[in-house]
């Protein structure tokens, strides 16, 4: 288990207590498929629903509602063995039939009725699921799908009562009608304001990895929306709440000094960094790309924007990803090296400090990623650092809707700032090139880089995890060597500031707070 706890080792868990969790937003709709991956609503779904598989902070998978599973040799056929005796909070059994109904809706959704499918579910290869008996489910795919089992641990794959799944979208959007099997049930919803969860007394099927039997300790959890970050932390400081979500990194040291606990779990996925667009100037030149890699002082970012809870990137992936390997040397900070790379590439510094080549300025526009809170500050600092190097840097900040219109999918954006989680390294294959329909082609290489094509295919079609890990290492080395990707820091997208009495909170591989095992001291 990966229970991180602030309580002294000898403290005995206490039953009872009400926890108030202050959150920036309660997200948009509550239609489960549409909202379960939300950074905000995911917090609540995680406590009111269970999943088939559990993933811990280090990316290890372990059984949960699926007691065990089998897979065939070419990883196209999976058999899940469902834990018996599990019920939804309305009393209906969580059996094989219910699992089939859930897998079906994850894979397909009901788009014509406004219900999305689960985005990262390997729907393209999905052939179907069958309940063999009350506790056995078989799932088949048309191609090797190593990512299927990890996906079951993904925050999107929450199990809901088949009756809920059959409801029309407008009723699913009412959280009180969404029935899960988790340790807490929804007690009260004030739209846009708060959600109150109440413990489910007969709960007894928490993930083995968490190491907790029976019902939760806490009586209730109140998720209360407070949009201002300082008001959230101030409320915890003044004892009006127990947890403040997403505090500003700048504040953390001071908060710790006041005796509060700060939790900065990292999720599995890519590090924060820029995917460079090789199809437009100046990043069509490898030397310029490398200059950016070496021109960024990550320590300064860590010390200015973040705190000691953040870690420098060591690779293209977060170091908690099991397949991640250390490639720090490929992109270490070296301003002199960066400058000489730019000189070599023919970019000459002018009197205003900006480099030019053939009359064109070395300019670059950065678009801070609205999904990452500190992105703005990081980009401002990168702006300062690259300006010193002779770049002319512009910052364009957009809100989420504008960002998704103007930046996402825009093939002229020179550098896209990445924040992206995944539970299985197989997902990486989909972002590197444009070999398959739906591939994202982050670096705008198309299929022009044969090495990358090959690496990407090998990751995607792997049927063996060990072998795939080696390919992943090779891939990380290649991408960083070609300077397609400029890593900045490892992402902590979810920061929790807690009152000292909060103990026993568990963070899974997606860094959501799970309160099954949590209690309040004193």
């Amino acid at each position, binding site marked *: 288990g990966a229970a991180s706890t602030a309580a002294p080792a000898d403290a005995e868990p206490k039953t009872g207590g009400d926890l108030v969790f202050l959150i920036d937003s309660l997200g948009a709709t509550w239609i489960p498929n549409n909202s379960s991956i939300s950074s905000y609503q995911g917090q609540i779904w995680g406590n009111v629903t269970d999943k088939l598989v559990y993933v811990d902070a280090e990316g290890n998978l372990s059984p949960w509602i699926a007691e065990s599973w089998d897979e065939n040799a070419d990883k196209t056929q999976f058999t899940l063995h469902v834990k018996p005796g599990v019920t939804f909070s309305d009393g209906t059994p969580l059996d094989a039939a219910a699992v089939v109904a859930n897998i079906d809706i994850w894979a397909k959704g009901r788009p014509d009725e406004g219900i999305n499918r689960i985005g990262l579910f390997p729907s393209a290869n999905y052939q179907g699921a069958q309940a063999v008996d009350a506790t056995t489910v078989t799932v088949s795919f048309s191609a090797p799908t190593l990512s299927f089992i990890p996906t079951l641990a993904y925050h999107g794959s929450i199990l809901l009562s088949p009756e809920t799944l059959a409801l029309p979208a407008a009723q699913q959007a009412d959280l009180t009608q969404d029935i899960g099997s988790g340790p807490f049930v929804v007690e009260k919803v004030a739209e846009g304001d708060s959600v109150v969860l109440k413990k489910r007394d007969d709960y007894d099927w928490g993930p083995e990895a968490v190491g907790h039997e029976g019902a939760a300790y806490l009586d209730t959890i109140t998720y209360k929306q407070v949009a201002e970050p300082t008001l959230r932390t*101030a409320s915890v400081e003044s004892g009006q709440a127990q947890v403040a979500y997403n505090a500003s990194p700048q504040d953390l040291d001071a908060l710790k000094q006041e005796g509060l606990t700060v939790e900065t779990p990292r999720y599995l996925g890519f590090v924060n960094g820029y995917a460079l667009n090789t199809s437009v100037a100046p990043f069509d030149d490898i030397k310029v790309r490398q200059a950016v890699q070496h021109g960024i002082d990550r320590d300064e970012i860590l010390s200015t924007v973040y705190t000691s809870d953040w870690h420098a990137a060591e690779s293209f992936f977060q170091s908690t990803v099991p397949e991640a390997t250390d490639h720090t040397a490929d992109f270490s900070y070296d301003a002199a090296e960066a400058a000489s790379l730019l000189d070599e590439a023919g970019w000459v510094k002018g009197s205003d400090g900006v480099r030019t080549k053939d009359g064109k300025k070395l300019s670059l526009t950065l678009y801070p990623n609205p999904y990452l809170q500190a992105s703005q500050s990081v980009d401002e600092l990168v702006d300062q650092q690259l300006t010193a190097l002779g770049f002319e840097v512009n910052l364009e900040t957009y809100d989420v809707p504008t960002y998704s219109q103007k930046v996402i999918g825009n093939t002229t954006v020179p550098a896209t700032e990445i924040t992206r989680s995944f539970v299985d390294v197989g997902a990486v294959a989909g972002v590197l090139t444009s070999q398959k329909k739906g591939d994202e082609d982050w670096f705008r290489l198309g299929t022009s880089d044969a090495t990358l094509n090959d690496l990407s295919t090998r990751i995607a079609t792997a049927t063996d995890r060990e072998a795939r890990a080696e390919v992943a290492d090779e891939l990380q080395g290649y991408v960083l060597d070609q300077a397609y990707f400029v890593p900045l820091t490892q992402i902590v997208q979810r920061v929790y500031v807690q009152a000292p009495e909060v103990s026993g909170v568990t963070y899974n591989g997606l860094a959501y707070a799970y309160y099954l095992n949590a209690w309040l001291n004193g």
Partner: protein
Amino acid sequence: MTAAPLLAQRSRTARVRGIRLSVPVGVLASFAVVAVVLAFSFAPALFTSQNPAQGVPADKLQAPSAAHLLGTDHLGRDLFTRIVYGAQSSVTSALVAVAIGVVIGGLIGLLAGFLGSWTDVVLARFVDVLLAIPAFLLAVVIVSSLGFQTINAAIATGVSAVAVFARVMRSEVLRVRSSVFVEAARLQGGSNLHVLFRHVLPNASRSLIPLAVLQFGLSILVIAGLAFLGYGDPPPASDWGLLISAGKDYPRAPWLVLWPALVTVATVLSINRISRWLRRTS
């Protein structure tokens, strides 16, 4: 029937005004504040040698000191410098807002009041709609449609002020249009256009000036409010509203909120004072 005493009264106030034309100290101080702010926005480099966008990260969040008069922000940028440079966009955007309000609102009011009949009816309904939607809500809706940038916030603020200017202009035009000197101008052989541009417009716009000054101050606040909600330019821009809203995230560095807020209050207060003075003297 009451012409004579009325006139006596009017001439007296005119005489009284003649006595009072000296400018009060408070107004002089207000002009000084506004002059400094304008100087900030036209020649920021005169007031500070530092760079508003480049800071020394090691010096982050320093309290006010000799090196950093008003302290530094979370990236070690000098707050005073940022305020000085922020004046430009705060002032220009407020000017843009006022210009939109005055020009569009003034035009609507002028046409509605001067042409009357169905033009008046149509324009009046349009103005009613603008007026019926709370100004700040209207600005938010418009800025959400144009995109979250300071210039768009300024445009939105301007549009939300159109109704006020249109109404004042219209009633002024109606007043002037029916005044005796306009009829006199007609008797002197003046055409419609001549009367409109030479008599009605200059007279009607006189009362628009204090209103425009007042709106200038209000616009600074509205744009700051929009920036506060995140509907303006992002950092490293340093509009005052943005500085306040970014500063509030650092409760341990209260100067980050205090100084931009004080500068904003001082500026708006001075502008309001000037507007009041103009209204009283014009």
